[in-house]
């Protein structure tokens, strides 16, 4: 078998060599195709470095400012961008490096690309993003009493690295290797839930996912195959702890006793891995037929060790049993085989007609099992141990078939019509339903598709896209059911200095099932303009008006009485940027830009968010520019006025370029 596979792997190499030889024309001109395209007079390095200092002044709620903006004060490497072209092409032909926002900003990025023609292409991408999330209004049941316990808040950093190396041993066969790491680490405040009461406690999170993959692309004139094999490993450690007297969210006496938590040590040790495979192909066996397909398979699995030790004055609500300590141990494993396949083709039977057919299936079956043991420690009493088996299932089968016919009515007008059928089923262990049964649901949806693309002139085009769906079964009450979706976009280049674009989108969904009566309507209208009235002035402007209306019936959980959930979001969003070239000297032209964006919404969460800005760049010398930028952030919420903030940011520095 190994010999056969080795032979199979070697065959493309042989075929490739033959194809290359066949492709050579009998007499090529004497020019040197490998000659450097870079004239020797050009510098070997070009690029720029942007250094500066940011001053900040904030008022209002600083925690919300950090949750929304989080730009701090201090010196910064705002940007670095350079390209090295090696005229001798030793290790690389060219090397590009881009870096942004280093030196304390919450969003650090770095990208490196190196390549050598006919040898390799290497890409490295790194991001370090700080997430700060502390919103007093989000999860603080005691907020009304003036107590802010900052529950469900966190401060963490996520670091993501990606390496990919593509090799070019030949023109047809491209092996590649890639590695990616995504890790997060931070602290926060989470809730330890015990019957009747919840206790805000400190938390520490660390998780890391490594992703290894390798594959080969076989690219021929009439077909292509990509085969990839990969795997991931996961480590996720979470801890929650507390060693103070904690009265939690419910500080009212319960049956005459005050509940508290004195000590907590809770930890999750989660380990996971996954093997995955990808097989992709495209082919055009005939000039009138393109075919493509893919087969994707993954099987992630996890295992968890859970330990919990807590003490205090706690209660088991069902038995109204007060206890002083608890020890819980849990172990579980889960796996999720997941298979996806698709097949599609584009058929061009006659010149003006294209038929696009696609089919896909997605099948995911999750199963998990484990054991959870809970030991209740009571004063002057025996230990009460409750073992519970953990067992669950989630099976999802999703299928979709779609056909579109595109007709070029004229050179300027293309009409499209189509049909999509979506069907599937899902089963889940009825975790939240009484008893050990299962819930199941089906999906049956028929969608009519239509569209038009009208290119009246090169300066005027219009695109319309419409879907109308009828559904007999949906997975959830809130899923799309009977809906109409429409998008329209028009572009008009009025003059060489003025271009307009308008777009409109609509989603209207109804689920008339008694007890649900879901009505959802979302509209977005936007208009943008780019105007360059003179060589020294350019103006960009955009305005978007969006509205969303959602009505759905639900049951009050306590008495199961029907209620209506209303959600409204009506927003105006505008942004503009005016760029002025100021009178210069010795070909050095200072520039002034100003504008910004505003967001004003009303409805269920009325909010205003202003972000005006102004920039001034003054060239001091060839390759040296002094830049300054002022930004203002103003955030206000009508219902949570205490969360508003205002921030002035002034950033100044120099850009050195070559």
């Amino acid at each position, binding site marked *: 078998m190994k010999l056969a596979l080795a032979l199979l792997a070697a065959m493309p190499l042989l075929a490739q060599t033959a194809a290359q030889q066949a492709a050579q024309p009998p007499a090529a001109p004497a020019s040197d195709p490998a000659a450097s395209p870079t004239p020797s007079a050009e510098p070997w390095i070009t690029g720029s470095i942007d250094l500066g200092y940011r001053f900040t002044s904030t008022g209002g709620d600083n925690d919300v400012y950090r949750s929304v903006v989080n730009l701090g004060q201090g010196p910064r490497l705002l940007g670095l961008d350079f*390209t090295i072209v090696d005229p001798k092409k030793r290790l690389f032909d060219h090397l*590009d490096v881009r870096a942004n926002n280093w030196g304390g900003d919450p*969003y650090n*990025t770095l990208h490196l*690309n190196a390549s050598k023609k006919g040898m390799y292409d290497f890409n490295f991408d790194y991001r370090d993003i700080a997430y700060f999330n502390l919103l007093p209004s*989000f999860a603080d049941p005691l907020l009304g009493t003036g107590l802010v316990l900052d529950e469900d808040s966190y401060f963490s950093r996520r670091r993501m690295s990606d390496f990919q190396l593509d090799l070019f041993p030949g023109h047809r066969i491209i092996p590649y290797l890639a590695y990616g790491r995504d890790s997060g680490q931070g602290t926060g405040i989470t*809730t330890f*839930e015990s019957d009747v009461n*919840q206790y805000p406690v400190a938390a520490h999170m660390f998780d890391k996912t490594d992703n290894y993959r390798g594959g080969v692309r076989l*690219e021929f*004139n*009439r077909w292509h*195959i*990509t*085969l990839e094999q990969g795997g991931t490993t996961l480590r*996720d450690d979470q801890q929650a702890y507390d060693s103070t007297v904690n009265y939690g969210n419910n500080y009212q006496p319960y049956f005459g006793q005050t509940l508290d938590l004195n000590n907590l040590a809770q930890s*999750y040790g989660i380990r996971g891995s*996954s093997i*995955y495979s*990808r097989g992709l192909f495209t082919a*055009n066996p005939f000039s009138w037929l*393109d075919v493509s397909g893919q087969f994707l*398979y993954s099987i*992630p699995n996890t295992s*968890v060790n*859970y330990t919990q030790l807590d003490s205090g004055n706690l209660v088991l609500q069902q038995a109204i049993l007060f206890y002083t300590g608890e020890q819980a141990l*849990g172990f579980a494993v889960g*796996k999720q085989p997941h*298979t*996806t396949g*698709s097949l*599609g083709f584009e058929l061009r039977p006659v010149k003006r007609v294209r038929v*696009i057919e696609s089919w896909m299936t997605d099948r995911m079956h999750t199963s*998990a099992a484990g054991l959870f043991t809970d030991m209740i420690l009571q004063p002057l009493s025996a230990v009460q141990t409750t073992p519970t088996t*953990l067992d669950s299932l*989630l099976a999802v089968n999703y299928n979709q078939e779609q056909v579109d016919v*595109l007709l070029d009515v004229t050179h300027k007008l293309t009409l499209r019509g189509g049909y999509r059928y979506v069907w599937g089923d899902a089963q*889940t262990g009825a975790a939240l339903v009484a008893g*050990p*049964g299962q*819930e199941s*649901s089906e999906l049956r949806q028929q969608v009519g598709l239509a569209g038009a693309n009208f290119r009246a002139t*090169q300066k005027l085009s219009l*695109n319309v896209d419409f879907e109308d769906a009828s559904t007999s079964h949906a997975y959830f*009450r809130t899923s799309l059911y009977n809906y109409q979706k429409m998008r329209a976009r028009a572009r008009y280049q009025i003059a060489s200095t003025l271009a307009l674009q308008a777009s409109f989108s609509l989603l209207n969904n109804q689920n008339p099932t008694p007890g*649900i009566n879901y009505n959802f309507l979302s509209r977005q209208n*936007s208009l943008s303009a780019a105007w360059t009235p003179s060589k020294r002035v350019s103006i960009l402007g*955009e305005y978007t008006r*969006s509205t969303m209306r959602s009505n759905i019936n*639900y049951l009050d*959980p*306590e*008495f*199961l009485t029907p209620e209506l*959930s209303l*959600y409204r979001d009506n*927003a105006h*969003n505008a942004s503009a940027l005016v760029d002025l070239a100021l009178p210069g000297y010795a070909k050095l032209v200072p520039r002034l830009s100003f504008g910004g964006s505003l967001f004003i919404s009303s409805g269920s*969460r009325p909010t205003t*968010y202003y972000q005006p800005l102004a920039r001034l760049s003054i060239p001091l010398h060839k390759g040296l520019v002094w830049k300054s930028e002022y930004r203002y952030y103003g955030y206000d919420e009508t219902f949570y006025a205490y969360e508003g903030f205002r921030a002035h940011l002034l950033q100044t520095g120099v850009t050195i370029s070559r």
Partner: protein
Amino acid sequence: MFSNRLAALALLCWPLGAQTPAPVTPVPVAPAQAATAPSYVGSETCQPCHEDIYNAFQKSPHKLVDTQKRRGWEAKACESCHGPGSKHAGSGDKADIVNPARLAPAEADRDCLKCHLNQPTHIGRIQSGHARNEVSCTACHSVHRNGPNGLVARKIAAVNELCASCHTAVWAEFQRPYKHRLPEGAMSCVDCHNPHGSILRASAQAYAANEPGCFKCHGNLRGPFTFEHAPVRLEGCAACHEPHGSANPRMLARAEVRYLCLECHANLPTAPGAIKNPPALGGVPPAFHDLFSPQFQNCTVCHMKVHGSYVNQDLLR
């Protein structure tokens, strides 16, 4: 076992490779047609009139069309897209040359796909919204672009600007307070979407073969969990989050968490087998949760493992 299947797949596809024809070569002009039909004149003929483009092209990745023999357009890269140029070279009339920018998008794309069709980036092309709506390759790619960074925007800000030039309403969502950090330059649209198309909805990027691209950065939420929260798997993160931006904290789709939960979890409990096909998933038994009490107004205070739990079926820990 699986590797055997792949081997078999490769074997099945081999005949296609065997029938791979020689690369597209310019068709020789028959003598009878020579008087009227234009012929190929080579890229250097284009240089005197189109010097800027010619010079820029020397550093473009497309330059290899001029230099690679196997593609069959050696020294004729300009004409590989614009067609034979002898007539235009003689007359200087733009009507005498093919200008892909003036063609219908599908026609222009055929030009690009002559070389680029059989590449992995085009796996999902025919299913993509861009293809169905006839967004041409040249809407994003500048064919003559100078410089080593390719034919399309690479810098994060430039990518976002390019996408936002059409998707203005989507970009407006990123001006809301709670959003993914695109305007700040931490991410770009193509981190989440594949503009060429994808097997996932909204051309979303896939991760680890067929997982939603969200898990590339949020790997700790990937699971599988012992107790899954079904919407995460069935409808994706967008069941609860507005990934482009929202006025609601955590990019949630509702202003208050309880409504987000209760809109789904409002089915009456169904006894096993009582109803063959209940109307939807998400049934809940009655719970003594007084929604007037602040304690119960944010479900995630107690049901904190809302993305899935490893040890608790009620997602409490």
